[in-house]
């Protein structure tokens, strides 16, 4: 059974439209026989009825949760109108698909956002196997404590006010050792997410050089398969490695800048890759297909989660 997980499109505040490639892709899959059963939107629809209708047309089982920019009053009325029934848009929801329970929330009702331990607590509270959360602009997917955590990123590639990866990496180069790192480290993801051969997908196991306590392995999705370089620079306190943008330069500091500032490069570096996920749930197994749209080409990665 297929479940579409789509993150904030931020239309019109931060983007104008979904990539036409995605629209084509999703429209077709809706027409085929083994179509998408559920559509889960993780907030930040921004009351764009056209986008809402597009999602509704993929599957009438459209589940929305409120994101930080959603005007819940307007959105509820629009969704109710579209579905032809009174609809409530909650802050979180849980659906059962085959033998798995999927919880989803945009995460605005808790703090700190995106903290893996907080997310783990949410998953425990909701008693779900898979937790989808929103608000990020880059794909994240990892297995921790036997549960599967997925953030599908933004389907429109909307811009963000999060610090871009390279900013974190920049600083990291100067910080070789962090005294707190071992004690602070949260319990890490186990390696239950297995990889498959037929799709391009890179795995980095036990890559954290400072972490010899745990058997720590993660699945690391990068749109250009350059995740190896990332592993060296990633922060030890974030067990989940975020998918990188392709143009990332691991050593931007080396370049000498004169008075003229290189804006084009920053625009390119801070550009977000549009993405969404499709979860194929069979029994207690979930195949996660990650769709990214880089320079007009749609790329698919696959990760498997087994309860």
């Amino acid at each position, binding site marked *: 059974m297929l479940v579409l997980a789509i993150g904030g499109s931020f239309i019109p505040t931060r983007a104008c439209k979904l990539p036409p490639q995605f629209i084509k892709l999703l429209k077709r899959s809706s027409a085929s026989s083994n179509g998408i059963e559920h559509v889960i939107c993780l907030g930040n629809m921004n009351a764009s009825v056209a986008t809402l209708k597009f999602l509704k047309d993929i599957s009438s089982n459209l589940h929305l949760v409120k994101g*930080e920019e959603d005007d819940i009053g307007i959105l509820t009325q629009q969704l109710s109108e579209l579905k032809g029934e009174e609809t409530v848009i909650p802050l979180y929801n849980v659906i059962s698909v085959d033998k798995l329970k999927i919880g989803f929330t945009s995460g605005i009702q808790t703090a700190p956002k995106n903290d893996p331990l907080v997310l783990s607590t949410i998953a425990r509270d909701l008693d779900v196997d898979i937790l989808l959360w929103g608000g990020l602009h880059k794909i994240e997917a990892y297995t921790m404590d036997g549960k599967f955590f997925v953030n599908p990123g933004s389907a429109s590639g909307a811009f963000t006010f999060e610090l871009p990866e390279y900013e974190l990496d920049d600083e990291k180069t100067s910080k070789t050792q962090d005294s707190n790192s071992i004690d602070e480290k949260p319990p890490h993801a186990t390696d239950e997410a297995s990889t498959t051969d037929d799709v391009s997908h890179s795995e980095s196991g036990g890559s954290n050089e400072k972490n010899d306590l745990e058997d720590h392995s993660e699945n690391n999705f990068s749109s250009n398969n350059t995740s190896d370089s990332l592993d060296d620079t990633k922060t030890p306190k974030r067990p989940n490695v975020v998918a990188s943008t392709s143009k990332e330069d691991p050593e931007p500091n080396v370049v000498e800048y004169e008075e003229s500032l290189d804006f084009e490069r920053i625009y390119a570096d801070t550009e977000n890759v549009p993405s969404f996920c499709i979860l194929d749930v069979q029994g207690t197994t979930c195949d996660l297909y990650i769709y990214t749209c880089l320079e007009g080409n749609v790329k698919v990665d696959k990760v498997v989660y087994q309860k």
Partner: protein
Amino acid sequence: MADKVASALNGIHQQSSLMQQCLADGNLMQALKHVSNFLNELRTSSVTPKQYYEIYMAAFDQLEIVSSYLASQPSGNHQRPFLDSLYELVQYAANIIPRLYLMMVVGTTYMQQPKAPVTDLMKDLIEMCKGVQHPIRGLFLRYYLSQRTKNLLPISTDEEFRATIDFLVSNFIEMNKLWVRLQHQGHSSEREQRIRERNELKILVGSQLVRISQVIDEYQGDSYSAIGYYRDRVFPIITQQIVACRDVLAQTYLIDVLIQIFPEEFHFATLDGFLAVMLQVHPNLNKSELVNGLVARFVKYQQDKAEKKQREEEEELTAQENETKEEETSEDAKKESQKDEKKQKETQDKETQENETPGESTEEVKSEEKDDKKSEEKEDKSDDHTEVKAEDKTTSNADKDHKTHDGAEAKATDTDEANDKPNASENEAKVEESSAKDEAPKPNEDTKPNVDDSESDKDKTDQQSQVTDSQKDQDAAASPKGDLSASLAQLSLTDDLSSQLFAVFWDFYLQLFESDPEMPASEHSQFLAAIIQISLAFDVDHEQHRENMAKVYEFSGKHLEAGQSVDILVAPLAFMQSPADLKNSQYQRTLFDQLDIPGQRRVAHAIISRLLTVEAPFQSTEEIDGVFQYLSVLICEQPEQTTSVDLGLTTTVKINDQDIPQSFLDTQEQLCKILHLIKPPGTPIDTVSALQYTRRMWLNKSKQNIVFTYPTLVETILYHLQVFGFALKRVPQKRRSPTHIATLKNQFKQVSVVLNELYMAHPERSYEILQLYLHAATVADNVGFSDASFEYINQALVLYEEQLSMGSTDNYYASASPHDALGGSSASYMSVIALVNSVGIKRSYDKDAYVELAAKVTHYGSRLLRKQDQCRAIYTSAHLWWWTDDYGFEGELFQDGKRVLECLQKSLRVADSCMDPYLSLKLFIEILNRSIIFALYGAPVDVPYINGLLSLIRTNITELEADKLNSANADTEAVLFHISKRIFSRTCEYIVQQQDDGRLVGVMV
């Protein structure tokens, strides 16, 4: 009436079974007698066209049996073939209708045989048909002839081809006369009914033109040019007939058919003649629709040509592939152009509320099968109702025509005809559909490639006029066989024609304007819009185009009524490539100002949708002004309180107790999207300045609406500022330009001004504005502008205290269950959480400033109204005191274990003070989970502390379980209690899991 059909069908059935018996016995003469008998049923005048069609089809099927029998007979001796004698024999049939049908079935069967005198037979048959002058009988008789001869018409020699064309043209002319004459049968009060009947029958006439176009294309003779032949021999005769019939329905339908069935090259060749015809047609004709149909084809043709050329260049090497592709593309193009035309016509219909809908007739000729019956019905109905007015005026003229052409038989049956009853409209579509199936007229799909081939072969030999040559360069390009040099030579000729097109149409329009002062204003604007399209599509030279446009606009300003120029303003937008195209358009602006508000909105919407399609960025403030002068009508639009809104007919959304139409919100969304296109060349600061300029000059014109556009504006500005800041950050600190720093600082202040303006105008949107302040603070912090960031947070805190702190309980989630940690709560609670999220990731502040903010936010949490909100806000605030993520921060992370413990203790006290013991338990478990997080992150939340919590929870559970025995009915509580216990047991499992990995050792699970 139905009885008549039933009895007729019954008769046919009976006679035909007798006929088949005779045929089986080999008794041909007796069989023909039965045939003649059932053909007598077609002599009826007392049925409607639709019913006549049913009878006709039944007879048709039986005649096919006769035909195949005859074809299977031995051909007789050489001197006198069997069918030849039979052809003569059947002419002795007593009545004209059976006689002619019999002649046709024998004659056309004869034509299939080798060495048959085909052309003589054709001439004879077409001549004999004149004997039937009753409209319906005559139309069907001639239609039968055309169906039977469909694949038999000879075109192998020039002579035969001419005979075939003569045959078809003459059949068309006569059918058209019969069709027009039908209008004048019977009493004048039945005019409406006549029009309906004629609409049902028009496909019969139109199909003749389709046949002509097919034959013209198929013929492959030497030194033959399809275009030339059409222009010189076919077009004049046909159009002469069309003009002469002086009938609105016939003219509208047939001209539309002509436009649709022949390729564009043919129309180029006959353009002068065509426009001349348009000046002579009936004054009530909707000429603009017809001319627009032609213009749409020209425009599409020109665009395809450009695309094709481009593709040609790309695919030069693969000639073979090329050939197939061209065919495909030309077909596609046709289909698309059809679609376009339909669309255009639909919109025109709506706009102008005109009488006729030729679009429908086009559909019938081309794709009847696909058409939805219902929609067609509707169209037909509207046709009929509206046509009457037009028809009124023509009657007197046409009556004379009718008399001169009327044959003896028609006169004799006039009275019969008057008895005809109205036809059921639900059946109309059927007639058209089924006749279309027999016809299968799809001229456009198969004709064009043929034309290309035949034409390119003749490139060298044919000396055509300049006009005719226009199509050749395209042919040569399309077909790899084409002579390259020849096509190059003709390229210039084509350009010549292109540049003349505007002048040709313009002269035509001016003549029309003179000759027809009565023409409705809506038609004028349609014409002018079409002419603008021509100019845009064909005038590569922009100077020329500008002159043309000025001409058109000047003329429109002078002669058109105010408010009629929407189409004229919308038409050029289809060609707009960038916002720059709207600059310096003084005539346009003048016209626009004359429009009423709804008209202006329509133009503005068209501008927006075009801009979003081309996605070309705004380059300068002039361009912004150029576009936004038109958009300001939307910026200042107030949601209308129309009757339909009041009655709930329009989709509306309630905002602040006001019903806002969804269309209004859509408009504001579109405006926001336009803001993303504002990106002049230069630095991000230039973009921000342009956005601020747009705000000052245009967006803030309506304080009411800034609530819809400012969030997008602010976020876009923040994004560009962030890019600028990141770029600045990459420069080593010492080399950063002070001007750059000052600029950025100033821009951050500007953002604050914008947010303040928004807040002042819309204090009711405090929660959303709070988010914007927090975004601004994050961006400033990201780029290291701690002062600005701190200031934004402070403003957010002020906003919180002024608007949100008092826990406006009307928040959407305020009614969530208190037990639900994730369900949300009052706006004040949600705001505090947002503040924790934002403040917690700030890394650029110095320590004192950060502690001050963190303390304030923690304090806000403790002052929330509801206990559960307080408790959750406080334990969440604990994260403010224990950084776990550096977010690019260099140096030791701020971690204050004492404050973390204080927070946890305090939340525990709040939880304990809850009056609801089940809620207390739930909160204890939540605090336990938080404590585990802090323990895992290394905060001094030690094992004894967690053990204490565990035993507290266990004690509570035991007590509640004891309680529960006493209160058996407490269902809700039982459920909540159960849920809490489940969460607790999952938490314990989690702890065990962690202990397996060597963490949380010593916790007593």
